[in-house]
């Protein structure tokens, strides 16, 4: 439990540029700090508009920070200068966004292989690894389908394993399962946990669903309203492996659910 953190967010702040002739824009995020240990699955939950996506964008380095810093494995990541941003921090930080962002002109397999291909790491071993992942999430037989020929859940799975396949040490997930129906979501959560048990990646998973936060996480951070900071932190006292479908029947679920719900204003 005392392992050195892999990723540390220190007093992070964000305000968007002020438009001419207006009041200085308010802080969206202010003095936000937390740390994540290697192999940990941290869920972040907060009211809508709390700047959850903005937070992940800053960690993924596709958006600048206005204050504070992000430290990854001893190196400072966050930049206040847009031109100095290094998206993905040299392939060390993966990002599964709300939209699947599959390339419509590529088939499932070519979409999943895209990062590996652009990193010049495509070989027989990688291909076999990707085929294993495709099988693990039930996409076998759909390798040659284009994204528009897949269901919403299948597209989510393809987007998920696209990031898992190239194996970045940290993966950010921004409500990746928000837009699918409840049944598919449970299945996707189970798939994610299965894949996580295989490799024990470090995952930061943002959600607005308390049940999802408990079902997936080792620990849940509750964000405040704007200006956003970490309002509370809860260890999930449910032993691994979690059974997503029956999570609410597990002893201790009701208590932790109630505590998290109370912490969200």
């Amino acid at each position, binding site marked *: 439990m005392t392992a050195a953190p892999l990723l540390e967010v220190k007093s992070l702040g964000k305000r968007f540029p002020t438009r001419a002739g207006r009041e200085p824009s308010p802080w969206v995020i202010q003095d936000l700090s937390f740390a994540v240990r290697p192999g940990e699955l941290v869920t972040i939950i907060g009211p809508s508009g709390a700047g959850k996506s903005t937070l992940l964008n800053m960690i993924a380095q*596709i958006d600048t920070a206005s204050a504070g810093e992000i430290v990854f494995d001893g190196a400072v990541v966050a930049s206040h200068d847009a031109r100095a941003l290094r998206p993905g921090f040299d392939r060390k930080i993966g990002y599964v966004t709300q939209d699947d962002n599959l390339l419509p002109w590529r088939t499932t397999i070519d979409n999943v292989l895209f990062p590996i291909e*652009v990193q010049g790491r495509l070989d027989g071993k990688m291909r076999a690894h990707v085929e294993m992942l495709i099988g693990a999430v039930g996409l076998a037989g759909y390798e040659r389908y284009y994204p*528009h020929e897949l269901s919403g859940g299948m597209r989510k799975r393809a987007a998920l394993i696209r990031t898992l396949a190239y194996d970045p040490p940290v993966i950010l997930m921004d409500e990746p399962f928000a837009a699918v129906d409840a049944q598919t979501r449970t299945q996707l959560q189970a798939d994610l946990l299965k894949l996580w048990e295989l490799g024990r990646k470090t995952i930061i998973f943002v959600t607005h669903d308390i049940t999802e936060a408990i079902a997936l996480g080792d620990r849940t951070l509750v964000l405040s309203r704007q200006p956003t900071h970490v309002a509370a932190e809860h260890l999930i006292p449910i032993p691994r492996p979690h059974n997503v479908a029956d999570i609410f029947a597990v002893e201790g679920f009701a208590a932790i659910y109630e505590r998290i719900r109370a912490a969200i204003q």
Partner: protein
Amino acid sequence: MTDVTLTTTTEAGELSRKWVIFTGRLVLALALLLAWEIGARTMGAIFFAPPLDVAMRLVELVRNGQMLTDIVATLRVSALGFVIACIAGVLLPFLLRRSPRLDAAVEPYIMASMGIPKYALAPWLILWFGIGDAPKLVVVVLMVFYIIYIATSAGIRGVDGRLIAMARIAGASERVIAREIIWKSLLPFFFTGLKVALPRAVSATIVGEFLVASEGVGHYIENARQTSDTVGVFAGIVVATVLVLVINAAVNVIERRALAWRPVEREMQV
């Protein structure tokens, strides 16, 4: 039982629909030919060459090899000009994309120069480049460049920024992003530009050949006009039209292959 009957009726319906369209097209073609013939008879062969004479001339031109020589001459200029214009019209927006400030500085000049009537430049171009292929080439390049440039620029603006962010995070270099994300997503725009530009490239060559040429479809038409050979003028127009139609069909085939992934191509057909 009901299912079977239903299927056959739809298939029969589909078939008869195709026949109706085909017959309709045939009737229209015959009507046009008839109007052409009537025109020739009422206005006289000097203004309106009779279709049969034109057909015979076409056969003659194929036989003596004149048609092939002229088509090759015209295609040589249009194709070369087209390729040069396409490369410039695609590369320039890609380069300007990297520097929004340079883009903003350059754009008004490009738009202003687009307003220059290209054919008005012909005398000046002849002065500069003589009477070879060069002045025609310049006109073709100018005609095509703007269309491809505007189509490509619009395509670049339409690229989904989220896909670019995804690629960057995955470690893609700017070159890979240009090739794999931007180029692929602007292809539909590019093909639209291509289809608008191709007939113009051929037209520009032909008009150029009216002015300066020793061979080519335009030269043949102009030559026939000067000798009051109306049949020759009409034959030349037919050749030019067929040339454009064939090129367009070829572009359509290439487009269908390149954009095979698009859902519209397969599902939206009524």
